[in-house]
C-alpha cells in the first residue's frame, strides 16, 4: 500500500496544477510575466534526492509517466513535458550520485531541474511554432518568474515530505532485501 503513496501524490499534484492559476493575483496573470507551475517536477526532485537509491530509477519512470499525463490533460501535444521531465530527472538522478543528500543539494538540483526543463519546453514549443518569443524575452518574462515561484513551492514541500520520503525509502529497501 505504501508504494502507492508516491504515484498518488504525483497524480494529485497534476490535478492541482490545473487550479494553480487561481492562486496567483489577477495583476500577475494579466501582466506580461508568465508563471508556469512545475509542481510535479518539484516533487520529482524530492523523490530523486530522498527516495531513490544509487541504482534505482523510480523518479525517472515517474517523470515519464506523469509528464505524459500533463501532456494529455493540459496541452494535447504529446511528448513535450514527457521527454523534458524524463530527461531532466535522469540527469538529476546521475548528478545526485556525485553529491550528498541534504537541503542545499536539493535546492541546487531544484534550480537546475526547473531551468533545464522549462528551457527544453521552450525549445520544443519554438520548433513546432507554438511560441515565437525571442530568448531574451523568454528569459525575463517566463524563465525567471517561473523559477522563483517553483522554488517557493519546493521550499513549501520540504517540511511535509522530507522525513516521510526517507522513511518510505528505508521501508522499501527492507522489503527488497
Amino acid at each position, binding site marked *: 500500500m505504501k508504494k502507492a503513496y508516491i504515484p498518488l501524490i504525483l497524480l494529485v499534484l497534476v490535478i492541482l496544477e490545473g487550479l494553480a492559476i487561481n492562486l496567483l493575483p489577477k495583476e500577475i496573470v494579466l501582466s506580461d510575466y508568465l508563471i508556469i507551475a512545475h509542481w510535479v517536477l518539484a516533487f520529482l526532485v524530492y523523490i530523486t534526492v530522498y527516495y531513490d537509491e544509487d541504482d534505482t530509477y523510480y523518479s525517472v519512470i515517474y517523470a515519464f509517466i506523469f509528464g505524459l499525463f500533463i501532456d494529455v490533460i493540459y496541452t494535447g501535444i504529446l511528448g513535450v513535458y514527457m*521527454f523534458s521531465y524524463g530527461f531532466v530527472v535522469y540527469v538529476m538522478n546521475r548528478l545526485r550520485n556525485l553529491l550528498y543528500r541534504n537541503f542545499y543539494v536539493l535546492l541546487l538540483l531544484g534550480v537546475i531541474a526547473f531551468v533545464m526543463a522549462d528551457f527544453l519546453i521552450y525549445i520544443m514549443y519554438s520548433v513546432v511554432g507554438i511560441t515565437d518569443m525571442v530568448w531574451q524575452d523568454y528569459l525575463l518574462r517566463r524563465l525567471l518568474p517561473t523559477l522563483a515561484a517553483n522554488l517557493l513551492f519546493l521550499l513549501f514541500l520540504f517540511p511535509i515530505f522530507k522525513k516521510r520520503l526517507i522513511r518510505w525509502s528505508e521501508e522499501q529497501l527492507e522489503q527488497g532485501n
Partner: protein
Amino acid sequence: MRFFRNKRLFIFLIGFILLVMLVGYTYRERLNITFAEELINDTVGWIQSAVHIPVNFTVDVVSNIQEFKDTYEENQILKEQLSQYRSLVYEVQEVRKENEELRDVLNLLESDSIRSHEAIQAIVIARSPERWLEQVTINKGKKHGVQANMLVMTADGMIGKIQSASNYTSRVKLVTGFDQFNRISAMVSREDARNIFGMIEGFDEETNSLLFRIIEESEKDLEEGDLVLSSGMGGVFPAGVPIGTVKEVTSDQYGLTQIALVEPSADLYDINNVIILDRSVEQVEDLGDVVDDETEGDNEE
C-alpha cells in the same frame, strides 16, 4: 558488440526518435483525440470537478470580501441601468414579434437563421498551467452534445472555441491563443447594409488585444469603441456573439489592409460559467437539405 555497450546512447537515440514522432503527430490541430487520451481526460476530469468545488469556494470567499467595498456604488449604477432596460425589453418584444411575422411571410424557419443556436451550459474545471497554449477544461463533453470547433462564450462575450471533446470533458482554446489557423469571421454592424466585415486573425501579446483584419472591399470608417461581433459567415459559429470593442485602428505592415486592435469584451482571467453555442443551421444541412462541398472540412474558423 561495441554497439550494445553503448546502451545508454542507444536508448537516448530511440527516445529522441520517439519524441520527434509523438510531437510531430500531435502538434497540429486535432479534431479527434485518441481513445486512450479520452479515457485519461474523462477520469481526471471527474476528479478535477470534485476538487474544483472546495478550491473555488475559498477563492470566491476571498474575492467576495474584497467586492463588498464596491457594492453600494455598483448598486446605484445598476438601479439606473435597470430602469433603462425596462423600456428596452418592450422594444425587443415588439421587434421580435415583427421579426416572426416577417419570417412567416417569407416562409423561413426559425432554424434557418444563422443567428439561432442551441446553448450548452458548462463549468470550467481546470486551466492549463502551460500559459503559451491558453486552454481551459470544461465539464461537458460529447455525451452532452459538445463537438470540436463550437463557439464558447461567457455572458460578456466570446472566449474561445472547443479544441477537442472527450466523452465527459472538453478542452477550450481561448481567443488569446488564436493564430492564423483559428480565424473567426467578424463584423462591425452599421446602418444601411454598410457593415464592415473582416477576420479575427490572432492575438497580439504586446497590446493584449485581438487583431481584426478588415476585408478590402468593405467600408473603412471604423471608430474606437465600435463593437465587433461574430458574423456567422465562416459556416461554423453562430452570428451575433460579441467579441470585443475596437481600441485602435492601424494599417498592416504592407499598408494594404486595415487592422483594428480589438479588446476582448469577456474577462479572460476569471472564467467560471461558460456557454457553448451549437449552430442550428448546420444540422439542417446535415439532414441533406443542402449538400455541397463548400460546407465540408471547414475547420478554418
